[in-house]
């Protein structure tokens, strides 16, 4: 059965290739640190299972230390020149868009088809497996069609990975922080404190405390999923639903959306806010948050008004 193990092996090979390419790049200003950084990520994917929890923890701390020392930095991955790209675009025209459809197409087809094909693919991991399969098919198609050098997938992958830089491991690290907060009981403490902020019997204050708490706690955790059980357990259910007779459906559904407004404002939501700024080479790390804060604030007010107006009718 194809599952996450196979994807992790593939990811390990890809990052191993990037590490090797960095090591062989004589023009890389921080060649050894970069190679070590990518090699540690490859190690995590390839043999992380064999390491103890402490071993994985030390590996993670080494990655962060390398990042603080300037890894992975930017080398000189072999790629095409601007002139070659324009010429290629003129020659191939809109056919260049077709390979861009392979990955989403395979992801889509796989998500619908694999569950009907028996036990070939782990049913819980259909989406991720389809994504990996789509990437392999798209890469093979591009290699056969355009015949770039054999090392091109690794060099091009390295070019983009170096563009993102240390932010590559930030989403995974933030997910780990969430787990540590859970071990430390942060959620329960916030849930116990939150109701103290509400004056007795005031509906508007209770609604504001709930949607505001969802947004603020989501900003801190980077994830509305982490904030929801805390705020729903601390204020939503005991105060709004049981205390003031609010509709649990409206409070729950719209409360989650108030949390999403916090995600738009959070540097902790690295996948959505920090990584794209790196992918687009924006000089301001917070440029995407800056672009979306007005939308987030207006929609938070809208969601607050929705609960206030419709949960108690």
């Amino acid at each position, binding site marked *: 059965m194809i599952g996450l193990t196979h994807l992790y092996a593939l990811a390990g090979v890809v990052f191993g290739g990037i590490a090797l390419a960095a090591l062989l790049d004589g023009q890389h200003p921080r060649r050894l640190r970069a190679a070590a950084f990518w090699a540690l990520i490859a190690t995590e994917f390839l043999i992380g299972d064999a390491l103890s929890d402490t071993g994985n923890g030390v590996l993670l701390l080494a990655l962060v230390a390398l990042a603080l020392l300037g890894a992975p930095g930017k080398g000189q991955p072999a790629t095409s020149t601007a002139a070659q790209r324009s010429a290629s675009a003129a020659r191939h025209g809109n056919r260049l868009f077709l390979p861009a459809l392979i990955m989403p197409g395979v992801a889509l087809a796989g998500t619908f088809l694999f569950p009907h094909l028996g036990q070939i693919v782990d049913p819980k991991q259909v989406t991720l497996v389809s994504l990996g399969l789509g990437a392999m098919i798209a890469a093979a198609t591009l290699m056969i069609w355009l015949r770039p050098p054999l090392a091109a997938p690794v060099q091009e992958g390295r070019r983009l990975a170096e563009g993102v830089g240390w932010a590559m491991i930030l989403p995974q690290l933030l997910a*780990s922080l969430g787990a540590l907060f859970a071990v430390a009981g942060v959620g329960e403490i916030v849930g116990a404190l939150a109701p103290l902020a509400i004056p007795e019997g005031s509906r508007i204050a209770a609604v504001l405390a709930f949607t505001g708490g969802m947004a603020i706690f989501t900003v801190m955790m980077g994830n509305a999923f982490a904030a929801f059980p805390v705020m729903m357990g601390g204020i939503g259910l005991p105060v709004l639903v049981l205390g003031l007779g609010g509709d649990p459906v409206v409070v729950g*559904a719209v409360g989650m959306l108030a949390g999403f407004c916090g995600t738009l404002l959070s540097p902790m939501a690295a996948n959505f806010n920090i990584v794209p700024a790196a992918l687009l080479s924006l000089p301001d790390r917070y440029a995407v948050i800056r672009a979306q804060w007005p939308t987030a604030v207006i*929609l938070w007010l809208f969601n607050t008004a929705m609960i206030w107006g419709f949960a108690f009718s």
Partner: protein
Amino acid sequence: MTGLPSLWPLIGIAVVVIGFAMRANPLAVVVAAAFGSGLGAGLSVPEVVAALGKAFHQNRYVSVPWLALPVIGLMERAGLQEQAAALISRSKAATTSRILLIYLGFRQLTSALGLTQIAGHAQTVRPLLAPMAEAAAARDNPAISADERNTVKAMAAATDNVGIFFGEDIFLAIASILLIKGFLESAGIIVQPLQLSVWAIPTAIAAFAVHGGRLLRMGRKN
């Protein structure tokens, strides 16, 4: 004060807030926060390292989508961004605002159908949407500054986020809907996913109006 739990585990949250406000390296902030909360909750240093390592290992799937990078790099090598920009600069009707507005609607509708994986920052925003929006802005304002180019690119990423966030909750089987249903169920309140997802529709419409309005306003300023 009686009845209140110990507040020391909250150190991690304080570290996060201060760290990001100071614009310290986020990796360092996260590790410091983990140690702050872990030690505050009474764990030892080796226990924090082990807990972090275990969670980092379990969360490897978060990094799997990076597998798309070599493919996107190969397409860029062949001139995908250039072709996207060329396509746009030939058509006067495709303004920055309209491109982003159409993408917003597309992202909301497909997410509402559960198709959240068919687009994203690496798959669509970097190779297609951002170059198109930037090319349209440069065509309509040849004197465009580097700052204005960056604003357009940031808005392209923001539009993807708004589209997916305020579309996906209309889909019945999305993780957030199942989380709400599960939470209410554990409190003895049985609700159907459909009841929850219809309440995502008003906010989805508001998101299209609010963010779409901002996109149109951005176009008028140029």
